[in-house]
């Protein structure tokens, strides 16, 4: 079964190939996502292609891509288990500190019940775990209508609550 992808709140076909291998020698043509070690070793060659994205492991430092965020079309962050929350901080750092505006994709153990929080942390694409339906998982993006905190997607509620029509506070 092909990987099911949600991108920008829609189920789409995934045109990218994920190269999990961290040392791969021949890199196939076409849109491809390589590991950070591969990217670092062959950066000039791969950057010239324009169809190469990079995936970060949970322990990787997103600062290593600081110089590439303006040009990379896609960055993926791996969640080895959905309970490993390091990727949430990586997502926010990529968006907010390193200015990445391209596709930010969650890969690995990505399920419906994590999508709302992931989206708040800057992710706009979700490779849903193969045994779940991406169509069903879409509902997870709408689990909450809002929240208190500053996130990548909103300012804190206390900054907005005084705005006209913000809420029918009783």
């Amino acid at each position, binding site marked *: 079964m092909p990987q099911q992808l949600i991108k920008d709140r829609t189920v789409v076909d995934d045109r990218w190939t994920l190269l999990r291998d961290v040392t791969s020698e021949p890199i196939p043509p076409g849109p491809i996502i390589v590991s950070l070690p591969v990217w670092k070793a062959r950066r000039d060659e791969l950057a010239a292609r324009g169809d190469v994205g990079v995936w970060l492991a949970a322990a990787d430092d997103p600062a290593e891509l600081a110089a590439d965020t303006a040009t990379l079309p896609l960055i993926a962050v791996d969640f080895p288990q959905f309970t490993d929350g390091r990727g949430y901080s990586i997502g926010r750092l990529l968006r907010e500190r390193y200015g990445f505006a391209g596709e930010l994709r969650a890969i690995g153990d990505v399920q419906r019940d994590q999508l709302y929080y992931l989206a708040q942390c800057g992710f706009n694409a979700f490779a849903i775990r193969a045994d779940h339906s991406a169509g069903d998982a879409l509902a997870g993006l709408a689990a909450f209508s809002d929240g208190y905190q500053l*996130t990548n997607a909103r300012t804190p509620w206390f900054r907005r609550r005084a705005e006209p029509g913000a809420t029918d506070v009783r």
Partner: protein
Amino acid sequence: MLFYRSVMYRYDSFDQRLVDERVAQYRDQTRRYLAGDLTEDDFRPLRLQNGLYIQKYAPMLRISIPYGLLSTLQLRTLARIGRKYDRSYGHFTTRQNIQFNWPKLEDVPDILAELAAVEMHAIQTSGNCIRNITSDHFAGVAGDEVADPRPYSELVRQWAALHPEFAYLPRKFKIAITAATTDRTALLVHDIGLQIVRNDAGEIGFRVIVGGGMGRTPIIGHVIREFLPRAEILNYLDAILRVYNRYGRRDNKYKARVKILVKDRTPEVFARDVEEEWSHQRGGPATVPDEEIERLAAHFPAPSYDVLAGDDPTYKSELADNRAFSNWAKRNVHSHKVAGYAIVTLSLKKTGVPPGDVTSDQMDAIADLADHYSFGELRVSHEQNLIFADVRQADLFALWTELKALGVATPNIGLLTNIVCCPGGDFCSLANAKSIPIAEAIQRRFDDLDYLHDIGELDLNISGCMNACGHHHVGHIGILGVDKNGAEWYQVSIGGSQGNDAALGKVIGPSFAAHQMPDVISRLIDTYIDNRHEDEAFVDTVHRIGIEPFKERVYAAAAH
């Protein structure tokens, strides 16, 4: 029923909607689990973050009581939930929460909906996330406060609730807040302790303590910042949590708490990492405007106190006339910042009742009393007792009479029989040993009230396992259940203390069988009585003469 102006945080439509959406989300997750669409492994972290454990005999549901504050409407709801879904009682915990030990997994969404209707929830009461914020159970009424901590506790509660970045931390994360000069929150044994202080300019801020904790590796927290301006609190918390979320160990759950990260990096390096992270967020959108703090503060007005001249003369004569009443007042009544008022602690430590347990009928009766005597509000203390924060001195005798009838007037606050105790092996699947029967055996041994009062201030804490839910490390006497070849044994430590001069107890030696425990405690007390100076508390004697004399006496006798 009497109605008062609210003196605690009330939800607005925004708060209510989030809690309602959480109930709907969990209802759907439960449905998918029962339908087989979510595996046990995938469902477990989700149910934990909604307070549901699967325990030894049944599920256990832990309900959040933010910084220990409860309205009588909420307490009556808990009573009703106890009757409808459980066995008509609940257990107050050392994190100021309440647990029900026998709900059905299928019923939990309905229970959460009933809680939401009275502005309560079970969000993040378990799991590897930011847990219930705890605070001083005398908040707003103690005389030793720099400021009222409740608006700050609510601010931090809102920040912690459903925080998208920090739902899947390496391990659980506990935050306590106090504004008092006498710490009543065990601040120094929390992942983060926030002490509200004023700087030389008179501005309010936080002294930030990180990396304390109990459990397998007990550590006293380190101050990483002496003064953080209050407006920066959420930026700084985000920075601490981000450092922890990224770098805390995830390979070994016993080394995953932030205390281990702080220890491994050293507090200095950890502080530097946090400050670096904070430098990116400082002054940003999460900086808290004064108006927001004022808005939250307006939720906690002083109740409509009567203007009273000073100490009530009738109360004074009742104290002189009735020894039982004066014994109770001495232990269970604390002074109030408003003239003519008092703070009353209801003891949930009656001999023969598991510490912290309250029946549904008692909850209803206590709610009636709180409506009548204390403005319809009460608090849960981390010592698992209940507090009426605003009682007129003139009403104390009548209240005492009613509390006695309810079995919650045992005059033992601060004394040996006010045992802090986890549910232990009777309920908890993590426990190595039972803790409740040990508490009861010790309470039975020390049932002579005069003797108990003569022994004086003594915190006795019991945990059924290393997770230290009974806070045994900071008990003046701490008891830890251990497993030896499948049998239940008990390790004893002495000299621990909570509060401003928090210390970790020292283990006195090899562990004991359950039946030895009352004798062991007796010998510790005898050693203290023989060695104490006038007005010297047990823990001070231990610190002065060391553990050796205690150890010798206990083990010399055990050898016979």
